[in-house]
């Protein structure tokens, strides 16, 4: 072959070639021996072609993301290209333009329709409300709006009670 295939992950000459048909679409991955080993291709029980396909579909990365870092964890699109995993939950907000095009080919739909962690979400919304009320309280005291302050304090106590925490 005049132009041997390069490994999708590290650009060494590829010796392992995989083809999988998912939803009538043909996906191909070419790997060098080392990457094939490292990714567990030779160990099928731990091997997911989907992960590899995912990385292969990442070239080229969207231009508008170069230089962007996740504020929470410092992750960059380049890190994703290397690891195929994200850094933290906030990365999904930071790199929306990188993720959205992938989801279409990767999943059945692009919007979650399954279980929702109701209790955890309820806790979070209470927590958010509490933080906001505490800010309001400080502002009200600063501005000497004592009626507002009293109302905030009452509401804070209410929220804390629904948390099951004793109010101070």
């Amino acid at each position, binding site marked *: 072959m005049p132009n041997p295939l390069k490994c999708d992950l590290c650009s060494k000459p590829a010796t392992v070639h995989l083809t999988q048909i998912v939803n009538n679409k043909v996906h191909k991955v070419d790997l060098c021996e080392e990457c094939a080993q490292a990714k567990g291709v030779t160990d099928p029980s731990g091997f997911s072609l989907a992960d590899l396909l995912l990385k292969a579909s990442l070239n080229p990365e969207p231009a508008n993301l170069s230089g962007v870092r996740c504020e*929470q964890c410092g992750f960059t699109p380049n890190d994703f290209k290397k690891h195929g995993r994200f850094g933290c939950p906030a990365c999904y907000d930071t790199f929306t333009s990188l993720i959205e095009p992938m989801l279409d080919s990767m*999943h059945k739909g692009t919007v979650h*329709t*399954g279980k929702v962690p109701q209790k*955890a979400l309820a806790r979070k919304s209470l927590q958010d409300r509490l933080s906001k009320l505490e800010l309001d309280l400080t502002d009200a005291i600063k501005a000497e709006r004592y009626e507002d302050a009293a109302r905030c304090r009452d509401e804070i106590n209410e929220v804390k009670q629904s948390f099951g925490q004793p109010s101070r």
Partner: protein
Amino acid sequence: MTIASLIDTPSELTDSGSSKTAVVLMTRIRLARNLAGTPFPGWAKPAKRGEIFALCREALSATSALKRSLCVSVEEMTELEKQILVERHLISRELSGAKAGSGVVISKDQCFSVMINEEDHLRIQVLRSGFQLKKAWNAINDLDTTIEDRLDYAFSPKLGYLTACPTNLGTGMRASAMMHLPALVIANQMEKVVRAVNQLGMVVRGLFGEGSDASGSIFQISNQTTLGESEDEIIKRLGSVLTSIVEHELNARQKLLEADPAKLLDKIGRAYGILRNSHVLSSSEAMNLLSLLRLGVDLKVFPEADRATIDRLFIEAQPGHLQHAQKGEFEPGQRDLLRAGRLRAEFANFPQPNFTFTADGSN
């Protein structure tokens, strides 16, 4: 609880073989969950991983399902112990090679296991013998809801549960069934089945890779995608795919019996002979022979009561379990001798095959 006591305790997987598990040996569901505002395990610094581990461990041991459970970190386990847990499907290969700050919590009955700091902060798993997708889902859904009382999950209304790898977004759920499909393998139909199943958005994995002759004719079939469908929809879809695979397997058996019964019975009879008399057996050959005997039970060549023995040996013939039983570490060559010895002993008192069932045309 220790790993040694766990190995010696009967479990759902090793001790509940019955006709209900004839084709689908076991059902497994796992959920990927992560903590809000926390870097994923692969990106977290070592100290952070330690914190996450401690936090999750405490939250998990407070749930009733995981009371008096076994909780171990990877650092505390020997290579052999890790291998045994992998062979029992209680931890993944990835976890067994994970860095410090990873571990697993395993329920007393070994039905639940939760890996901490594998690819995601939590990989919650439930394991049930036989074809029990709905029961498994109810069980893991309950456990997940209890854990949610204590931990704040990373969740987005649009993308669902947020996972380190976008292939698990949404439900974070992978439901799978371990199926014994000897007739489809003998009839060379597995490739066709794999292709059809792939088109339906499901994945087939065998011990030697997709589409190949899996050792012991055991295959794992699971959903490929996790986003855009609810858990119930995924389970329903997987369930109907599994049901149709079961039908195909049973049809293939019928056809083999009708077309050339001697050929099929010869395979079963020879497997019995080898298991009783061989002196060198690789793990893969042992699996294939046990598979034929298991098929023999389904065809009533051997009594139903002995199915559990075969299912137990499927696990105990694996390298990790074998070495544990022999109390030492052995080279693969030595293991093949030990394995043959072990199986000779097990099968010395196994009932003789009864091949008469075909004479009157019934089974």
